[in-house]
């Protein structure tokens, strides 16, 4: 199989994630979609790593996974905090930083 298939899947996953981030209003789902985007990227990294036959891309993918874990930690923590303060669970409602 040529690398194009892997990249096509990766692009589809990334695009789905991006569409989800833009269209969904529930912060939990936005976080999930972000994970999709990251994993789309990871897929591309691993595919390129296979193509060249060395481990650099895979190491980078593991780094991305670590970062994603941290990010989810904080993101979920924020979501829990929002829920506890009984604020609406809706990203569009949280716009106090507008100019």
């Amino acid at each position, binding site marked *: 199989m040529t690398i194009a298939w892997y990249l096509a899947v990766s692009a589809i996953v990334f695009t789905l994630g991006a569409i989800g981030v*833009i*269209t969904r209003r529930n912060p939990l789902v*936005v976080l999930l979609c972000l994970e999709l985007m990251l994993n789309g990227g990871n897929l591309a990294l691993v595919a390129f790593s296979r193509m060249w036959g060395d481990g650099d891309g895979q190491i980078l993918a593991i780094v991305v996974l670590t970062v994603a874990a941290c990010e989810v930690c904080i993101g979920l923590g924020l979501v829990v905090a929002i829920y506890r303060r009984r604020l609406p669970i809706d*990203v*569009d409602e*949280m*716009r106090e*930083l*507008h*100019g």
Partner: protein
Amino acid sequence: MSTAAWAWLVLAFPLAGMLIVAFGFRVVWGRGAGWIATGAILLSFGASIGALISLQQHAPAHRQIVSTLYHYASTVGVNADMSILVDPLSVFMILVVSGVSTLIHLYSVSYMESDRGYARYFAYLNFFVFAMLLLVLAGNFLLLTVGWAFVGAASYMLISFWYRRSTATRAGIYAFVINVVGDVGMVLGTYFIFKHTHTLDLLGSFHAASGGAFGHATNNGDLVAGCVMLLVAAFAKSAQLPLHTWLPDAMEGPTPVSSLIHAATMVTAGVYLIARTHTLFELAPSAQDVGAIVGVATLVVAGTIALAQPDIKRVIAYSTMSQIGYMIMGVSVGAYAAGMFHLMTHAFFKALLFMGAGSLIGAMAGEQSLDRMGGLRRALPFTFAAFVIGGLALSGIPPFSGFFSKDEILLVTGERGGWHWALYVLGYIGALLTAIYTFRMIFRAFFGEPVEEARKLEAGVVPHAHPANPATGEPEDTGVGFPGPTHAIAERALPMRVAMWLLALGAIGAGLIQIPKVDFVIDDFLRPSFGNSSLYATHTKNGLLTVGLVLGTVIGLVGIAIAYFAWVVRPGTATVVRERVPALYRLLANKWYFDAALERVVVAPMVALGRLARGDIERVFVDEALVGGTSAIVRAGSAAVRAAQSGFVRYYAALLILGVAGVSFYFLLQT
């Protein structure tokens, strides 16, 4: 000790006195500040005598000593040194300045006793003396300008000494502004001279000028311009037409200040300046003529104004202007020694008159108008005696000092011949006016029906009116910034009496220093400073000398007789004259409309220009177009940026993705 060391000490004592009084005012109690300040000036006078003695030990050809303390700046062609010039002229000036200042400090110790700003007063006064001594000792134009500006600043601070009196602060600002006009003249004049002589040093530039730096013909254009600019400086400082209007207003200051700064010392700085730069003026006879004509015009105009002023201090102020007119005329026609001689005698008798006026005003509880005074002769015998001595010296009655010095100026003027005869005649007309206005003042204050204050004083009660501004009648209190609660009278204060006695001795006897055809002390003493002058102390024509001496005496006596007739024998005469020729009276009472003319010619256009600048240029162009335009651009730009900050996370994410996609496509299309 060397001559220069004495001269540096002359400068150091007043400076030290000022610093001690200014910084030690919390520690020094009672009259301490006054005694410290007086002691500092007395030491300075002692050092001046030391300088005199040590200078006389040099051979006459070596009596011009330049001493440099340090080099302040030496850049391309300009050497700004802290250097002084000690020669007979400057020693003469430091003797007069420090001597008269000592007595006036002594007088002030009592006079200002009840004032809340006692220490501040003496700090200012010492600063003034320091600045004045710096001015007369300066060895280069730069230091001369510094001293020139310092005395102006000291004058401002002392005129506005009672700073809660609005008339006093206004008069101080007025005096300062006109003095700054003079400072500008000084700097520009220095520039014209420096341009050709390439040195700021006084002796150096005189040497260059007589060596042909301005060409070998007289009246080089730049030199005349430079000398006229120096004359502007002299006129502003010495209250000559048309820059004289500040001096009568300066009488708002305490009376000893009027005595020291606005009679004896600072206002004579213009005379000193012309005498000091005589080498330049002799190469520019046109500038000399300007000085002589302005001097004679001032002496006549001021003399006539003094006839119609009701305020006693202003009468003496106009008299000062008039006497300085004689000096300016004198040093402008080459009567250098006579001009300096008159400067000295005038310092004595005019300071004495002002001190008498201070005592008189104290006796009247702050009242300064001659209309309210009368019959104070028996109540104030000492003050009366001081006034008579000062008045006789001022009117030029022999053997009082003013007689010799004034007649000598006029004698030298007459001897120049040609159109100088007009100056000679006008000078004697001025002498007649002098005698009339001086004795008008004395007769009105001391003769006639005693006023209420006089009767109270005779009964031993010092009157204390409610404190008020003598010019406007506004009520005042006696706190800091206003005069103190009690008034000093010479009859009751020993330091004032001592100061006045010593000055009276000077006013009586100082003329004997140089009696025509008998001795030539001042001529001989000052000769080394005027060694290169072609006009200095020429031999006098015997005929004219006799005519002058007789004429001077007769004119003085006639003036006193006229005053006696008009204000003692028939007291209504002045009113009759006033009603006969109301136009003349209005002219004199309005001071020849100089204030109105200045207002019309200078102030009004300036105000209009200022209003235009503020209303149209500043408000419309600067505020609205420049400043307003800049802020409008920033505001519009930030409004656009702010609109993008919607706060929607999804919107930011979409923008981000779009941006990344756009950049990616750009690079994809590139390859």
